């Protein structure tokens, strides 16, 4: 198998994972009642935020190729994911 084919397979797998996580986000509201009305909504919301930023990280690392970029660049984008995602999650949970 050539390097090109390996890259194509990797990109296809990333797309499959991204679409699967999107399907999970879509289906997640059905699970909320299992945890009770108020707590279920909060847990669901936190899960949706986490899934969204997991997808963002996958896009940054694999489609944008920040995973193989030089370390300070990768660190800057990982920091963005942590701050943007963490901030969104904290605001959602504590406001």
């Amino acid at each position, binding site marked *: 198998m050539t390097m090109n084919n390996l*890259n194509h397979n990797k990109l296809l797998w990333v*797309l499959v994972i991204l679409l699967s996580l999107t399907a999970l986000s*879509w289906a997640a509201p059905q699970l909320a009642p299992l945890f009770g009305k108020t707590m279920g*909504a909060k847990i669901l919301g936190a899960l*949706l935020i986490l899934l*969204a930023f997991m997808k*963002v990280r996958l896009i940054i690392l694999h489609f944008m190729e920040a995973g193989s970029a030089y370390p300070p660049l990768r660190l*800057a984008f990982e920091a*963005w994911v942590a701050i*943007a995602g963490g901030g969104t999650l904290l605001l959602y949970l504590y406001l």
Partner: protein
Amino acid sequence: MPGELGLWIFLLADMSIFALYFWVFIWNQSLHPEQFQQGQASLNHSLGLLNTVILLSSSYFAAMAVHSARGQNLNSFRRNIQLTIACGTGFLLVKAIEYGEKFDAGLHIASNEFYSFYFVFTGIHMVHVIIGLSLLSYLLFSLTTAEKIRQQMANIEGTALYWHMVDLLWVVLFSLIYLLQ
């Protein structure tokens, strides 16, 4: 490293502005929970999901176009750029249908807080999509030989990077605006 350092810094700055949008949205959701819940319930979730699938797929095609360009595969590069443009155009069409539904229902940017955020944030994102489509179209019409692709590699990678940013911003907007309760 794909693209140029200046572009990465620009992308990080743009993404940071959007991070503030995400926080402002959550903040306002906590101030007007019922209004936001009603607003979210009135959105067409299926069209939002469709647009997410379209943009994720478009990002895959953009990444494939970059790999094809590196391999000097002109036909594969052009086919993947065409597919990326087709997805981006599809996104705009779906968005137009969605906006049309809202306008028909008498909903607009000044209807309430939720719809202000909905139209402003998705509108700003749509401007990014249009800019990305313009850049992709430029690549499609200007890069017609393998030699030109080799010369313009930095522009190809830069355009793909921009397009991926447009995709990842939508991923978060979709979750916050359409799904988060």
